[in-house]
């Protein structure tokens, strides 16, 4: 049987269960409506406990925009909001479905232990 200490150590190694795939987190955040950088950071932190750094966030934004998965809107007081595109919604749906299947399979295996 695993001790509590082992579980804590494993949780620490995995970052306390925080999920970190910045492009996916940005897409998931924008799925509930257009947002600017700070709103995305707060929304993502509330959604999964992961607080993206400024460089990480804009790295993801730049690549998602480059891939046509999100698009910029007119700046509001130097802050530029972004919204998810149709292609972004499709990509988000496909990725989340894969993750859902993976999570289900993993949890079933854990239950069987």
């Amino acid at each position, binding site marked *: 049987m695993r001790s509590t200490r082992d579980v804590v150590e494993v949780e620490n190694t995995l970052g306390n269960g925080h999920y970190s795939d910045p492009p996916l987190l940005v897409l998931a955040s924008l799925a509930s409506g257009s947002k*600017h*950088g*700070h709103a995305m950071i707060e929304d993502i932190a509330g959604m999964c406990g992961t607080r993206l*750094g400024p*460089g990480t966030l804009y790295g993801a934004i*730049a690549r998602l925009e*480059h891939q046509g998965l999100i698009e910029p809107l007119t700046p509001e007081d*130097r*802050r*530029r909001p972004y919204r998810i595109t149709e292609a972004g919604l499709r990509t988000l749906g496909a990725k989340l479905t894969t993750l859902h299947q993976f999570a289900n399979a993993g949890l079933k295996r854990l239950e069987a232990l």
Partner: protein
Amino acid sequence: MNRRAARLLTSLYPRPWRVRYGAEFEAFLVAGPRGLRAFTNVALFAFCEHLFPLGGLKMNRLPRSFGAILCAYLVVIAAGINFYLTIDDSSLAAAMRANPGLSTAWNVVALGSVAALLGAIAMLAPLAFGALRFALREKRRDVLLRLLAPPLAAGMLAAWVIGAFLFLGKHWAPLPWAVLGDFAAPADWPSLQARWLFGGLTSALAAALLAVSSIGVYQAIQRTRFDQLRFTLLHRPFTIHPLRFARIPGMILTAAMAVMTLGVFAWGLAANLNATSAFHAYSGPMHSTAFASWMGSICVFAAASVIALRTAPSLLTPAGE
């Protein structure tokens, strides 16, 4: 974060990125995240943006291929120097004279290195000239600076080694191959600690400068718009396109690096069979054995050859231009 720090951090990003995201990113930094963690996060991602620029996805395949092959060659030079200096002045050099298998493998490496050097010169000359002309004509300081990275790096390393050589009483202690723990050094040699310290500093400096040079070469080629070069030779006009001209030398360089890799591999096998004690003696850099040094070299040779061989077929694709 104050405005000055935000501006400084934003300025770390490449120019094309700043043109698109600079203003909003600066405003984002001023309004929110602060502290060392935010600072290092931005600095790290700005560095990554230089390595893997967003526009890189749109870059033509051919310049990227030349950049990758040249970077592979720079790494091979470093591994080759390590291989040579591990053997030089060691009992392996004497063993090579007595063993035909070892000397044949060595000659294969030597022939490969000559072919690679000729291929590299023929490939690099039109590319460097084309990039230099573009940088001067378009006043692109960023390209010029990146082109200067390898010679500046070589100069810095040479200055450090010569400076340390003079500082340590004209002994080659700054070279990592002078750190020989089991060697009863003469009394006038610098202490073992000094050799460790200076050898370690030289290794770290060489690795950093090699990385800077490789990135510099890759980015200089990436940022250049190559035009046709016109020149007169023996009263006859010639017109060449650097990217087209460099294809064949690029293939030769790739093949030569693969030959060198096979030669180094065969040499190691022969040394292990025919000069076992010398192969496991401490003649490698930083008090490592010749075997460990050979392992390091062959891994680097193999990795560089794989990169070059995977890249080389795109040199034959007309659509890659």
